């Protein structure tokens, strides 16, 4: 068992599960979506990106790309949340909430691809 691989897989799967958990629920209902979960998803996603740095294989490049997409989506989602809570005069409306969740859902797709790639990579190793 390779400890490094365990950590790597742990973070990648955790990024997907947290992200999925945040997206689950009504699209525009703020009560269904926990801000702490969004924060955790963003942090784990960032750590995943750094873990994928420096892998020179083709698969490694794809993984890095999906991770960067997830980061981008989650940062935008967090930005919308901050905008809704702090800046917008109306406060958090269902419309803003829907934007936050749909961006996070996009990130979930990217994370999903990341996990698929991880599975593909594992399947390719015949040991």
């Amino acid at each position, binding site marked *: 068992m390779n400890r490094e691989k365990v950590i790597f897989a742990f973070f990648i799967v955790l990024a997907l599960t947290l992200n999925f958990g945040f997206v689950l629920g009504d699209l525009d209902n703020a009560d269904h979506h926990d*801000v*702490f979960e969004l*924060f955790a998803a963003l*942090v784990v996603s*960032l*750590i995943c990106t*750094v*873990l994928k*740095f*420096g892998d*020179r294989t083709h698969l490694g490049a794809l993984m890095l790309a999906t991770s960067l997409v997830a980061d981008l989506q989650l940062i935008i989602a*967090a930005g919308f*949340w*901050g905008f809704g*809570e*702090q800046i917008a005069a109306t406060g958090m409306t269902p419309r803003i909430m829907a934007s936050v969740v749909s961006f996070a859902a996009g990130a979930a797709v990217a994370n999903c691809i990341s996990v698929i790639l991880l599975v593909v990579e594992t399947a390719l190793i015949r040991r």
Partner: protein
Amino acid sequence: MNNLAFLFMRRLRAPLITLITVYAISVFGMTLIPGRDADGNVWYMDFFHAFYFVSYMGTTIGFGEVPYEFTDAQRMWVTVSIYATVISWLYGIGQTLAVLQEPMFGRLMRLRGFTAHVRNLHQPFYLVCGYGVTGSIVVRRLIDRGIRAVVVDVEQERIDALELDNLVIPVPALCADASLPDILDHAGLQHKQCIGVLALTNNDNVNLSIAIASKLLAPKRQVITRTNSEVTTANMASFGTDMIVDPFRAYADYMALAARSPHKLLAYDWLMNPRHRALSSVYKHAPGRWIICGYGRFGRALASAFAAEGMEMTIIDPSPGNLAPLRNAVVGVGTEAHTLRDAGVESAVGIIAGTDNDADNLSIIMTARELNPKLTTVVRQNLHQNALIFSHSRCDFVMEPGRIIANRILAQLKTPLLALFLEQLQQQDDVWAHTLVNRMSSVVGDSELDSWAIQVTPATAPAVNTMLAQRSVTLRYLNKNPRQRDRMLPCFPLLLKTTNNEVHLLPGELHELQIGDELLFCGLSMAKRQMEWSINNYNVLHYLLTGEDPPDTLLARLLRHHRESA
């Protein structure tokens, strides 16, 4: 580029993860700890403010407590966070600096800079492998002629020396093993502007692999190599290396020429060597017996060259095995008087100290000179660092392999016509050579004699080409000074090669130029620059031919045409 970025990212993985984790924990903690607002109500910081606060706390410690004054619990957490974030920043920055200072990183950076520099060369360049004595002379002379060069050498010291040489045009240089094909590729072996590869390292195997790599990757590209053994020479010739310089053979031929016809030697010297000897220094050859000390590679090359001239010689060598097949041979080093006496130094006309030890060579010459002051002395210099001693040794000839190779190669690079001329020179007699040297001397005096070729083609001599469509141009007009047509440039034509491969030595000034003619000129390099005006600029050539300098605009030409036809 990829290597560099990957190395960087790989090494910074741990500090980046630390930084992200510490920030995440600090932000998270800030949102969990209850605070009090201005009215004393319990208040929880949201992520936006927590992130804002931690961001400026980590980087700048002088800050206020926003949006409300903190409670003691919050302050305790902030204290922990300050230390955590500051330490993780220091760790990250320290690690970045450490990566930048790693030797591997520096090597990759240099390789990257070198590759980019070579890739962006847009002028023709030579790839020079080996920056020793030969390499440095060749590169300097190429740069003086405005030709670009790229240098690869295995020793960092020599690359540093190149940087200190103050060449006027920047020369990309890399410290790497030139026998590796990918290094050669980085150095522009497959670059379309690379016009030649010079393999000048002191290792025959390396030179061989450079020549092979070049001939395989770009079969038409010129390859010039130096070699130290006949086996390698034959090997290189077998796959079409364009020029192979064996310094010992080259110098042996040179010495044979010196013994046979001193004026030819002088003409040869003036054309090949930038620092030529004065006319009065011409070597007065007395027929007689020569003593050759050392029967290694150099000694053998000399003996065969002398034997071909039918000259008498005695050979001294410390190993009796080497001397077995020879008739006139004495066993010994040659540094002791008795060995030299045995070899008959009193009755010899010249001595060549050709061992591979500089101290021995000088000792041989000094002992021999004491025994017979009239001897012509030739000494072989092995190490370039000993130049000072050798230049004061008062020997008639100092043979330095590095310089010989450099001169040979430069003559080849200047123009292939020069090699053709030197070949033709061998067939002339010594009187002819004497007149030639006198003429050269009257043209350039003590300055350096340069030589250059001109091809009468639309691309290389457009003005002559256009003019030939209207009227004939004789050779003498090229020799005129384009600033003042009643003066001649300090140069003269050495050789003319016509389209049907006829070769004329010293062509007359009334020769009418034809398209496709190739000319070799010698003279001051200033004349070369002036001559470029007359062969490239139609108006200048027109002035030289007619003495008129009329306006040559479209309108002026139409008017003139109209007037002439009227």
